[in-house]
């Protein structure tokens, strides 16, 4: 590689960092540096591993939510599903280590079933996914609390909890490698692989323009249903990790659907579908947790966390929305000659191509829900 191309790739990397697609990495970097300044021991490998262990369930849920959001839908049932799985693990495994494997299998099946129901009702019965998963959220949480009588039961056997809290000890440099970090790495790798396969491409196509995708021969119902199944499975895995990390309680997992959506949106994924990158979604989860850690170290009262989180997500999305607009000028509409408005070729060299690609009015920034 000669010097010029290195310079080029560096500048390209720099450009990516300020674009919405990459801005989350910049944000994450800033937050991590900031935390390290406040608390230098954070940068020690062991501490970083602990941090990753804490983020893992959120990141996994965000990866699952990414698939649903990029296909143009919502999954609000994730939080309830996490709670349900946590309670199922606590009740069915009990103190009997030998039940771990069969119950784990049952939990995965249960998760897949919930995803299948969400997906089929959304695609075949044509109920908006917002409503389907909202109903599922109420029904799951109510059902699980009804089953347990509303009281938390004991934690499951320690062997099962090791998945969330244990790891490989005495690893060189990092000292302790949590299972959850490994699991996150595996799931992220699988998610990247999924996104690069035809499945991932059709998912984005469906989210961008369902009609075009259908004409191109995509089985829309199956692609969307698979996305819901993936998201429910990821909620299941997060539940398994949280049983180990946080224990069994009906409030574990509460609000996870909104945290996941926030993380995904922080990662520059557009609500309404069709645009996004799974790695950025996972990075969004890391940025969100880093933000919480930072607020913790900075001594901000925990009650103000919500307010700051709210401000940050508005700013992040406003940033990406306005940048997209500046770059595309909402492409098709404003550059069309019929508009009577002078197109601005200097600002917008890509718009003619976009104009060909997207019919007018198919995609808007707000209308995608």
């Amino acid at each position, binding site marked *: 590689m000669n010097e010029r191309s290195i310079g080029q790739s560096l500048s390209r990397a720099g450009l990516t960092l300020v674009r919405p697609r990459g801005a989350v990495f910049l944000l994450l970097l800033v937050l991590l540096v900031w935390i390290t300044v406040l608390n230098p021991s954070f940068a020690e490998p062991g501490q970083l591993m602990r941090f990753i262990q804490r983020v893992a369930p959120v990141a996994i849920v965000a990866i699952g939510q990414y698939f649903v959001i990029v296909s143009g839908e919502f999954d609000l049932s994730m939080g309830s599903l996490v709670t349900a799985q946590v309670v199922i693990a606590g009740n069915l495994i009990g103190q009997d280590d030998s039940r771990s494997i069969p119950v784990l299998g049952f939990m995965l099946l249960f998760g897949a079933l919930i995803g299948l129901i969400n997906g089929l009702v959304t695609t075949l019965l044509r109920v908006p996914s917002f409503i389907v998963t*909202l109903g599922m959220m109420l029904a799951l949480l109510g059902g699980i609390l009804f089953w347990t009588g509303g009281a938390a039961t004991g934690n499951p056997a320690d062997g099962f909890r090791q998945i969330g809290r244990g790891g490989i000890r005495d690893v060189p440099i990092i000292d302790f490698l949590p299972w959850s970090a490994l699991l996150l790495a595996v799931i992220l790798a699988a998610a990247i692989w999924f996104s690069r396969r035809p499945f991932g491409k059709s998912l984005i196509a469906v989210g961008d323009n369902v009609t075009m995708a259908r004409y191109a021969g995509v089985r829309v119902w199956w692609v969307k249903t698979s996305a819901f199944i993936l998201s429910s499975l990821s909620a299941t895995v997060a539940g398994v990790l949280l049983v180990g990390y946080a224990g069994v309680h009906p409030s574990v997992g509460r609000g996870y659907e909104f945290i996941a*959506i926030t993380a995904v949106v922080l990662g520059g994924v557009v609500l309404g579908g069709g645009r996004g990158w799974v790695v950025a979604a996972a990075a969004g989860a890391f940025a969100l947790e880093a933000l919480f850690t930072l607020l913790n170290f900075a001594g901000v009262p925990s009650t103000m966390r919500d307010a700051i989180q*709210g401000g940050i997500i508005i700013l992040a999305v406003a940033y990406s929305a306005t940048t997209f607009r500046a770059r595309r000028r909402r492409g098709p509409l404003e550059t069309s000659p019929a508009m009577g408005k002078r197109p601005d070729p200097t600002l917008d060299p890509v718009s003619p191509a976009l104009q060909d690609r997207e019919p007018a009015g198919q995609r808007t920034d707000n209308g995608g829900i």
Partner: protein
Amino acid sequence: MTTRRLRLDNTVIVLFALIGVIIIGAVLVSTVGRNFFSDGNIRDILTGMSVLGFVAIGQTLVILCASLDLSVPYVVSLSSLIAAETMQGRQENILWAVILTLLVAAAIGLANGVIVAGLKVNGFIATLGVGLIIKGYLATEYKGTAGSVPWEFQLVGASGLGPVPISTIIMVGLAVLVALFLRKTRTGHHMFAVGGNPAVSRLSGLRTWQPVVVAHVMCSVMAALAGLLLASRLGVGSPTVGSQGGYDLLSIAAVVLGGTLLLGGRGSIWGTIGGVAIFAVLDNVMSVMQVNPFLKDVVRGIVIVAAVAIYTGRAIERRRARFSKDASGSAGTPPVDAEVAR
């Protein structure tokens, strides 16, 4: 003309659903030896309707504009606190407290609207963010209930004309006003236009931000009225009263149950009131039959999905006929229409 017939049809379907729910409910209630149509029971149902009704009327406007408002539960809580703290149990403060509450809520709605329409942030995220900001403020400033409401103001929530509570009368009155607003005013019409297709509305020369901002302001003011009503019922302001009620998601569910499209552009206030009534009847029947409170949520979840499933099938059928007749929908139809055209 077609639009008007369509809107009427939607509302009629919701009305039939409501009548169906009432008949089933009445039969179920009579099996445990109680009278569904007794004065007390009707008052219970109507009382249950009013708070969610206020929130859902505002939510309808926002959803018509293809946005969402997830900040309503926190606006409700904040309003109850502002009202109760300003009144301090004194009658002469009532008017000022109500005005102040509505002004604060309008400012929040304005912020929502500007973030959605001006900064182009998706309504889901914008209002979630604003909601979180208010939630953080509430959690930091208040440890529990605060303020107190004078007796005269408590009467609003407690008294009624025969079996009809005053609060429900106010709610229905506002529904009439908002329905007139949608049908008679320019901004009302523009809400349908912008929600249906912002691109076409802009090409037609509308200021597309204006209806969105107005809808958000009205939605927050409606949520504030719900908060005032709750303050009047509780006698104090509470920082958690809104989030406990789950008004964000329930109001969206009621709006969609009432036949308003989540994608915006189609819907009606009366459908929403029907949706709210269905919820209220359902809750009442389950309470009378002493269903386990956790099981109630299961039933509620299933009913929401099932009702919307039955409903969307019909609504889409109607829309299809309309668009093929017009033969003009090919350029600018929103994604759902295209999906149907398969």
